């Protein structure tokens, strides 16, 4: 098993865990964390699968960097909304 494949398989496991978390958990904060887990899984697959013959491919790295920016922005928005709800006394977890 190459390191790349190992990364990819770990990524798939993380993605599955995160997906289950977003769907099954009820608390908003945990669901936001679970979404981040999904994202990290996808990034690992992206970087891991693209490593062929030990040569590093720059394109997926650029994609992952972009993806991380998107994930940070989304998480910030989700947290801001969750906080707003909590302040209004609608906190569910």
């Amino acid at each position, binding site marked *: 098993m190459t390191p790349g494949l190992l990364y*990819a398989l770990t990524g798939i496991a993380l993605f599955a865990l995160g997906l289950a978390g*977003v769907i099954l958990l009820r608390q908003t904060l945990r669901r936001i964390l679970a979404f981040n887990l*999904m994202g990290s899984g*996808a990034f690992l*697959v*992206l970087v891991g699968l*693209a490593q062929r013959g030990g040569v590093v491919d720059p*394109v997926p790295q650029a994609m992952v960097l972009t993806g991380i920016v998107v994930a940070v922005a*989304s998480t910030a928005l*989700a947290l801001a909304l969750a906080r707003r709800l909590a302040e209004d006394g609608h906190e569910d977890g």
Partner: protein
Amino acid sequence: MADTFLDPLPWLIILPLAWASLAFLVGEGRGGRLAVAGLAVQLALALILAVQVMAQGARVHAVGGWGASLGIDLLADGLSVAMLLLTQAVALPLAVYARAYFSEVAQTTFWPLAGFLLAALNALFLSADLFNLYVTLELLSLAAVGLVAMSGKPAQVDAALRYLLVSLTASGAYLMGVALIYGAYGTVSLAGLAPLVGADPPLITQLAAGLMLAGLLAKTALFPFHFWLPAAHGGAPAPVSALLSALVVKATFYMVLRLALGPFAALADDAAPLLGALGAAAILWGSWRALTTHHIKMLVAWSTVAQLGYLFLLFPLLEPGGAALRAGVMQAFAHGLAKAAMFAAAGVLMLSTGRDTLEGLAGVAGRVPVTLFAFALAGVTLMGLPPSGGFLAKWLLIEAALEQGQWGWVVVVIGGGLLAAAYVFKVLRQAFLLAPASAHFHRVPRAMEWSAFLLAAASVLIGLRATEGVALLGVEFGP
């Protein structure tokens, strides 16, 4: 150099970003005039682009001179230009409407968010690769969620958070699909993938396509993923609901269509019966809920769930050069314009009566006749009566179904039209009742009434400009 600078392609993305940022700088609640001016230029640019593409064929623009794979390519072909035209044509009257609406109702960040939303939409329709589609889709969702939460009311923030979590999960699934595709083929370019995937794709491609499709369907709010839509669309301020229902859900439909026509053509046949069945279920369930709700904007939002179903009926009937693709795009146009008109009209009715229930509508016929006429015209399009765009879309669908001997879809199309008639007439009937003595009506700015009317009239008249549309759609990107 001058040619690159004057190319309308990048300007369709830069302009909304520019006026959105300026609107943010000039402060809360301002920037509407700027937005209307910017949108007028954008509509002109989209028209210029349509003429150019019809004359010279599809073309690619490398952003900043950096081509793929590390740079970003923008691609304009018939389908993407058609969607660009729809976006600007819906957004311009809505901006006029929103200026008047937000002079009545306090708002904070509508213009910046609307600008970012439109920039993301335009960029999405011009994307030439799977990853750029992902990024633009996320930008679109973030702006849309911001718009839903804008009013700050707990119910709206709750709906926005729910929408955001569905949206993030869905795009996570899509991103995983993109990662698997890149791992398998080493490219995410739509044009580059099509020959690589071939006629008999391996399991990893099927898995990737399945993940991407599931994510996109959840974002399109196709039955049974529609659960987040009525709360998010029905509760938001009227101009926001109109933008979301008319345009935002079309973006993910466009992506499904793009993928089914391009890289995943071989798999599209397998998914088609399922997509058609879900579309049929959406039409029946959405129409039924629209018929049984008591809130006017919820009625319009459930009607969106139903009308989205029609878009997915095209997949079982999709064949190269067939009527189904034209039907789908015509339905996207007709529903986009009609639903924007309907939400705009619903906003006027609610401002006028000060209530959001159907019962409260009694007597509005005499107070805001132009708006009620706009609502009825938009209803004509949703029902599919001639000569509206909705009629043409349903006619083309029926034609395609009959050609291929798939009778079942004909029943769904006609049944959905009858249900639409039922819920539209429910509103009209109530509006023509006599107002109770206690009723109190507010004055509504005329710009709101007439912009709703303009959108509704466009949704009916679009059926008469179908020839140009067909010619535009015929422009495909070829190597």
